[in-house]
């Protein structure tokens, strides 16, 4: 197997082409992302407030920002809240999306097409449009959802769903999951249709029932797709910012802080840029830890 097959296009000598081809993208990423990452790291070791902005230079204070952040009970509350919120959104969207995708296979073609159309429509909604619409659905004074609940015989005129953080987070999470469902459902459905038919037929000839086919053939083949989708959803949902920010009129109260909002408020609200940078870095490390598997999986694909 190790003998090189026709696939190798490269003979012996050193070739500059690949490096020339990737150079422009490396330069762009280096300036716009590389430098800010470096700056973020160096800021996290500095005291950088209003005085330092005016002076144009931070004061090096070592690990002080990290120590202070990790000592703060509020930080741990926010981290737990963010993880819980992320876990909720990811599991709901993956379970519902996966379930819908598996059902889609068995639907009447007309219904499947209609569902596909609706999913595409929802997928296409710009983030700010979907936030605006969901705010309208659950608005304080003229909410259709409140009206529907009232019509079932409950009395909840002018209900403010965001006074209670639980219902508030449910609605924000619902909006995020609603926006994420189409991508998840359609990706899983697309993967399902790629499972080779002859494999299933062979198993059926060998006497496997539909449950065995599902568990022993379809699920193992879909596992990589699920892993990619779970990891991507985790990355996206962990850093949800605009939803919370706009649902709560650009001034979320402390009970609505997640890691992203917390870091933002520390920097732009309280002008403690060093602290904000430290929190942001902790957030990045948390994400890398959670999604390390995804990265390895994708790197293996990149090698092929």
């Amino acid at each position, binding site marked *: 197997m190790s003998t090189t097959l026709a696939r190798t296009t490269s003979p012996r000598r050193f070739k500059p082409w690949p490096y020339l081809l990737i150079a422009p993208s490396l330069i762009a990423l280096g300036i716009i992302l590389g430098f800010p990452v470096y700056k973020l790291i160096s800021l996290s070791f500095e005291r950088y407030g209003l005085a330092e902005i005016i002076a144009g230079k931070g004061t090096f204070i070592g690990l002080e920002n990290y120590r202070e952040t990790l000592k703060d009970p509020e930080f741990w509350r926010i981290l737990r809240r963010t993880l819980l919120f992320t876990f909720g959104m990811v599991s709901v969207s993956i379970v519902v999306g996966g379930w819908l995708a598996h059902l889609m296979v068995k639907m009447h073609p007309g219904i499947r097409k209609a569902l596909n159309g609706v999913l595409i429509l929802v997928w296409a909604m710009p983030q700010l449009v979907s936030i605006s619409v969901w705010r309208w*659905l659950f608005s304080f004074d003229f909410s259709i959802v409140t009206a529907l609940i009232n019509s079932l015989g409950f009395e909840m005129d002018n209900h403010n769903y965001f006074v209670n953080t639980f219902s508030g987070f449910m609605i924000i999470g619902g909006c995020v999951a609603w926006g994420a469902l189409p991508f998840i459902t359609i990706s899983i459905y697309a993967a399902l249709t790629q499972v080779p038919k002859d494999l299933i037929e062979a198993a059926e000839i060998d006497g496997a029932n539909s449950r065995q086919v599902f568990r022993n053939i379809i699920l193992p083949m879909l596992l990589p797709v699920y892993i990619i989708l779970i990891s991507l959803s985790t990355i996206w949902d962990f850093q949800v910012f605009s939803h919370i920010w706009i649902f709560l009129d650009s001034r979320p109260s402390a009970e609505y802080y997640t890691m992203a909002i917390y870091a933002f408020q520390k920097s732009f609200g309280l002008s403690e840029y060093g602290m904000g940078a430290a929190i942001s870095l902790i957030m990045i490390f948390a994400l890398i830890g959670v*999604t390390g598997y995804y990265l390895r999986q994708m*790197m293996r694909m990149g090698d092929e």
Partner: protein
Amino acid sequence: MKRPNSSIFSNISGMFAIVLMGFPVYWMVSTSFKPKGDILSTNPTLFPHSFSLSNYTEAITKEGFTQALWNSVIVVVFTVAISLFVALFASIAVARMKFRGKRIYVASILLVQMLPLSALLIPLYLLLSRLNLTDKLAGVVLTYIAFILPFVVWTLRGFLINIPVELEEAALVDGCTKPQAYRLVLFPLMAPGLVATAIFAFIQAWNEFLLAYILLSSQDKATMPIWLAGFTNRFGTDWGPLMAASTITAIPVVIFFSLIQDKIATGVTAGAVKG
């Protein structure tokens, strides 16, 4: 062998999902055509009983609409053109060539996509203000390119590896040079993938809110999402015109998106299921 009732169950679930998923969109569009009195009713009805375009006229005559539309178009065109051009080269290197450091390059492309945007706001703002690019569309374009590039490279690579190498090799055997083989054989074959990726980049840039919100401060620089956010002020929200404006903002995306949806779904997970 199909179990008959499983199909009925999935059909009912399907219809249920259609109604639930579609409702917010339906409500946006139907609100946008309702007269003011019907919208500001404490007892809203599911179906409109009168039809009005007043929300649309109010939305597009609201200050800044044409300016925001124009700004968005400029930002999107430059972002898409530049990032596609740059990414095309990189994706050829990644998909078709072997070189030292490829693993590191691919890893950094993927790692960069995991960077939480909100974590980079502070240093990005500091960088762009040093380059004198805050509150300028060029600054926004520059950051969009950087954030979209990794995805574009990765997606184009996905389309490229699905084109058999043998086709280019045949062209080489027939006497083409390598650039000729790329130009005459590879590019025509990847045209659909390029278009799909361009549209996807278009949508990303058209929809982006957070960076524009931080980087642009004057009103005549606002992009469409910023303009949308402007419907809410401290006196409340103008729901009717906001729903009309939301519909207007969503329409180009819906049109473009319906053209490419099948490609994107398979592009993201390309190669994950091996047939």
